C-alpha cells in the first residue's frame, strides 16, 4: 500500500511539527509577529508578537501527543519535543533564508527586525534558538495532553487570564486611574506598559483558583439552582437581567469616550446582526447584500435631517428614524421579491449582486445631485432630547443600548411567534413548509423586510454618530462582517449575536494593531468554525441538534466511501 505524503505529514510528529511550522512562518511573513511585538503581556518577559510562532509549537506538541494513541508518557513527551523542534526548525529555516536571500523583495514584512524577533534577539547566529525553544514548548504542549482535564482546566484558564489582562492592560489601567483602591490594585498588577511579573503571578493564581473552585463546586451550585422552584427561578433570572442592565447603564461613566465609542460600534453590529439573524438564522436565507439596508437607513436619515445642501426636510432625528425604518423595510421587501424563487448558494450570490448595485449607484456621478456621490452627505445634526444634545459617544451609547434592547425584544417575540415558527419551518425544508400551508411569499418577504428594518435602525444611528454618510462606509466587507459574527456567535441565537459582536467588532477595535489582520482572522475563523464548531459559540439547541445529525450522517457516509476506494 502506498503511503501518501499527506498521511506521512499528518502522522509523524516531525510532519505535524512542520505543518505547524508552515503556519508559524506564514504568521511571521504576514506581519503579525512584528505588528504585535510592542504588545507586551508581562513586562520584560514576553510580548505577543514573538510568542506567536511558539504558540504554533505548543499546538504542534499537543497535536502530535494527541495522535500518539496509547503510548507511554515518555514516548508522548518525545513526540511533543520532536514536533515542537520541527516547528522551531521551520522558523529557524526562515531566519536562515532571510540571512542569505533578499526575501524582502517579495515579502514586505521580511525585515531584519522580524528576523531579530524570531531568533529572540540573537540575529542569524541565533538560528538554533527557535529550535530549542520550540522543542521545550512542544514538550509542554505534549505534557498538557497527558494530565487530566480537571488538572488542565485551571492552568489553561490562568494562562488565558494573564493573556487577556495583559492584552487589555492599557484600557484597564485607564479605568483604574482614580481612587485609592483602584490605584493600589494598579500598582500591584501593572508595570507601565504591561502586567508586572508579580501581577501576572497574582492574576494566574486568582484565575486558576477560581476555575478550580468552579470545577469542584460548580456542579453542586448548578444542581442547587436547578432545585429552586420555577417562580423563584424566574425571579432570579429577572434579578440577573436587572443587574446586567444596571451594569450596562454605568459602563460609559466608567469606561470613558473611547470605550464607549467601541461599545456603540458593537451595538450597531448587534442591531445589524439581529436583523440578519432573522434572515439567515431563522429563515435560512443567506443574504450577502445586507449592508444595502444599513446604507438605506443611514442615507434616509442623512437626507431627512441634514442641514447641508442635499438635505430635503431638516427633520429632527426622532422624526426621521421611523421613516428610515419604513424605507428600509420597503427596500427589504422590494429587493426580496425578485429573489423569492432563488435558493441556497444562488440566493447568496444574487443578494450580493443587489448589495453591490446599490453601493455602485450611490457612488456614481449619475445620482450625485441627490446623494452626493463619493463625497456623501454632510452636516447631519446630533439628536437631542428636550434641548439636551446627545453629542459624545457616551450619550450615543444609551441610544444604541435602548434600540438594541428594543430590537432584541421584538426579535425574541418574533422568534416565538407563529411567524417565527414558520421561518424555521422554511429554513428546515421549503417544500415541506409550503405543503404544511405556509405562504412562502409572505413569510420570506417578512423576513427580508423586518431584517432590513433592523439594519435601518443601525444605519440611522450610524449616520448621526459620524455626522455624515459616505458610500465608502458601506462596503461588502460589512455584510461579511455581520455574517461572520452571526456564524461565530451561533446561527439563530440572539445571545450569540452579542457574543459575536463583542468578539469580532469589540476586540479588534481595542487591539489597534489588529486592524490590519482583521479580515485575515475573520476568514480563518469562518473556515475553522465550519469545521470544528459549525453551530457557533453560543448555539441554539435546534441548530446544534441539526448539525450533529448531519455530522453523524456524514460520518456513516464517509465509511461507505472508504470501502469503495482503491487501496493505494
Amino acid at each position, binding site marked *: 500500500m502506498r503511503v501518501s505524503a499527506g498521511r506521512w505529514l499528518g502522522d509523524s510528529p516531525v510532519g505535524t511539527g512542520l505543518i505547524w511550522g508552515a503556519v508559524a512562518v506564514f504568521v511571521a511573513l504576514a506581519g503579525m509577529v512584528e505588528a504585535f511585538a510592542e504588545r507586551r503581556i508581562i513586562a520584560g518577559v514576553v510580548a505577543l508578537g514573538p510568542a506567536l510562532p511558539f504558540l504554533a509549537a505548543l499546538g504542534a506538541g499537543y497535536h502530535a501527543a494527541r495522535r500518539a494513541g496509547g503510548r507511554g508518557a515518555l514516548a508522548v513527551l518525545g513526540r511533543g519535543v520532536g514536533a515542537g523542534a520541527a516547528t522551531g526548525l521551520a522558523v529557524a529555516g526562515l531566519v536562515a533564508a532571510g540571512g542569505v536571500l533578499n526575501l524582502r523583495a517579495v515579502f514586505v514584512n521580511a525585515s531584519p527586525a522580524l528576523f531579530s524577533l524570531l531568533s529572540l534577539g540573537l540575529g542569524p547566529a541565533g538560528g538554533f534558538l527557535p529550535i530549542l525553544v520550540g522543542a521545550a514548548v512542544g514538550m509542554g504542549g505534549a505534557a498538557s495532553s497527558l494530565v487530566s482535564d480537571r488538572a488542565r482546566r485551571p492552568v489553561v484558564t490562568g494562562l488565558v487570564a494573564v493573556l487577556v489582562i495583559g492584552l487589555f492592560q492599557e484600557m484597564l489601567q485607564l479605568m483604574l486611574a482614580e481612587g485609592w483602591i483602584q490605584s493600589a490594585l494598579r500598582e500591584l498588577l501593572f508595570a507601565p506598559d504591561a502586567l508586572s511579573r508579580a501581577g501576572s503571578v497574582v492574576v494566574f493564581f486568582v484565575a486558576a483558583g477560581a476555575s478550580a473552585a468552579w470545577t469542584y463546586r460548580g456542579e453542586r451550585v448548578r444542581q442547587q439552582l436547578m432545585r429552586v422552584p420555577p417562580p423563584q427561578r424566574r425571579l432570579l433570572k429577572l434579578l440577573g437581567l436587572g443587574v446586567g442592565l444596571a451594569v450596562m447603564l454605568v459602563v460609559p461613566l466608567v469606561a470613558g469616550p473611547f470605550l464607549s465609542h467601541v461599545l456603540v460600534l458593537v451595538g450597531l453590529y448587534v442591531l445589524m446582526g439581529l436583523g440578519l439573524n432573522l434572515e439567515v438564522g431563522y429563515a435560512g436565507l443567506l443574504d450577502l447584500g445586507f449592508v444595502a439596508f444599513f446604507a438605506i437607513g443611514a442615507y434616509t436619515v442623512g437626507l431627512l435631517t441634514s442641514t447641508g445642501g442635499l438635505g430635503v426636510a431638516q427633520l429632527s432625528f426622532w422624526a426621521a428614524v421611523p421613516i428610515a425604518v419604513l424605507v428600509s423595510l420597503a427596500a427589504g421587501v422590494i429587493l426580496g421579491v425578485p429573489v423569492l*424563487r432563488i435558493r441556497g448558494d444562488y440566493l447568496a450570490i444574487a443578494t450580493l449582486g443587489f448589495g453591490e448595485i446599490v453601493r455602485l449607484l450611490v457612488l456614481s456621478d449619475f445620482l450625485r445631485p441627490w446623494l452626493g456621490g463619493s463625497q456623501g452627505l454632510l452636516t447631519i445634526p446630533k439628536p437631542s432630547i428636550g434641548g439636551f444634545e446627545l453629542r459624545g459617544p457616551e450619550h450615543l451609547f444609551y441610544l444604541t443600548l435602548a434600540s438594541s434592547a428594543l430590537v432584541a425584544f421584538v426579535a425574541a417575540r418574533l422568534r416565538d411567534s407563529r411567524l417565527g415558527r414558520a421561518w424555521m419551518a422554511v429554513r428546515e425544508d421549503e417544500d415541506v413548509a409550503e405543503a404544511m400551508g405556509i405562504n412562502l411569499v409572505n413569510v420570506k418577504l417578512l423576513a427580508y423586510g423586518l431584517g432590513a428594518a433592523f439594519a435601518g435602525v443601525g444605519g440611522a444611528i450610524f449616520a448621526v454618530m459620524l455626522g455624515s454618510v459616505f458610500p465608502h462606509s458601506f462596503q461588502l466587507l460589512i455584510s461579511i462582517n455581520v455574517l461572520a459574527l452571526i456564524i461565530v456567535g451561533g446561527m439563530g441565537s440572539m445571545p450569540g449575536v452579542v457574543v459575536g459582536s463583542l468578539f469580532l467588532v469589540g476586540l479588534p477595535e481595542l487591539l489597534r494593531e489588529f486592524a490590519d489582520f482583521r479580515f485575515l482572522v475573520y476568514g480563518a475563523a469562518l473556515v475553522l468554525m465550519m469545521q470544528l464548531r459549525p453551530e457557533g459559540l453560543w448555539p441554539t439547541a435546534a441548530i446544534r441538534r441539526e448539525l450533529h445529525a448531519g455530522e453523524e450522517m456524514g460520518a456513516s*457516509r464517509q465509511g461507505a466511501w472508504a470501502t469503495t*476506494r482503491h487501496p493505494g
Partner: protein
Amino acid sequence: MSRGDPLGSSPSHLERPARRSWVEKLEFVSLFLWAFRVAVILVVIVGTYGTVSAGQYPGPVWADLVVFGLAQGSVYALIALGYTMVYGVLGMINFAHGEVFMSGAYTAYFVADALARSGSLDRHPLWSLLVVAVVSMATSTAVAVLLERVAYRPLRHAPRLVPLIAAIGASFFLQYAFRGLYGSGFKAYPEVAVLKGEWVLAGIRILRTQAVVLVASVLMMLGLYVFVMRSKVGTAMRAVSEDREVAALMGVDVNRVVVVTFAVGAAMAGAAGVLYALVFKQVHFFMGFVPGIKAFTAAVLGGIGNIPGAMLGGLFLGIVESVGPILFLDGLGIVAPYQLKDVIAFTMLVMVLIFRPSGILGERLTVKKA
C-alpha cells in the same frame, strides 16, 4: 443535505397549475417580476435608440469596444471554467476561486518583474512570458489544492450552507493573507516591448496584448475541452459529475478526481491571471474579487456545470460590459456611464439567477442529480 437539488432552483413553487385563468396568474410577485423585466428591456431599447440616433460614436469606436470586450471576456471565460468544473463535480460554488486567480497573477508579478529587470522579458519575450505563466499557474494550482484539502474536503457531507460559508471565509482569508505577504499597494506589471502597439486585421484595429490574450485563451480552452472529453481523468471527471456515488462504485477515485478538477480549474485561472495582467498592467490583493464574481456570472450565464457554456458566457459578458455602458446608458443621458459598467454586470447576474438559472446552454452536467 440537498444534493438532490444542487441548483436550489428547481421549477418554481410559486407558479400555479396551468388551468387557472390569466387574471389569477397576475399575482403580485409575477407582476413585480414582469415589471422588472420590462424596465430592464426598456432601458436597453431606449438607451440603444438614444445612442444610435445621436450618432456620437463612429464605427471604429464600437469595433474597439467589441475587441476589448472579447479580450476581457476571454479572461472571464478562463476563470469561469474553474467555477463551472467545481460546480459540476461537487455541486458547490467555490467562492474563493477569484482569489485563486489573484494568487497566481500576484505571485507571478515578482517573476515578471525580475525578468524585466534582467532584460530577458524583452530579449526572449515568448519564453519569459511562458515562465511567468507557468509560475502563475503553479501558484494558483497549489493554492487551490491546499484550499480543497484544508477547507472543503472535511465539509463534503455537511449541510449545504456550511461549505459556502467556509468558501466565503477562505476568500477573505486568501485576500488578506496575500495582502500581508506581498503588501497592500498596487504593483505595476512590466510591459513587454513586443506587445506594445497594435495590429490591423481586416480593417479592425486590435492591440497586440489583446490579440495575445484572445489567442492564448482560445488555445487553452480548446486544450481543456480535449482534456475533459478525451483523457481518462476527464472521463472520470464527467462520470463523477453525473453521479458521484455510482462513479465511485465503478472504481473512480473520487477524491483524486476532485483534486484534479480543482487543479485544472486553478491552472486556467492562473493563466487568466497573467493574461489579465497583460491587459490591465497592474495587480493588487483585491483584484480577484470582482473578476471572480463576473466569471461566476459568466458561468451561470452559460449554464453552470457546462464547459462550452462557460466560454460562451464569458465572451458574452465581456462584450456586454464593454459595449453596454455607452450603448445602453449614454443614450439615456446618464453622466459618466462607464462608472456603471459593474452595475450592468451585476444586473445581468441577478437577472440570470432570477429568470434563467439554468443558463443559456442549460446545465447538462448537473441535471442528472436532480
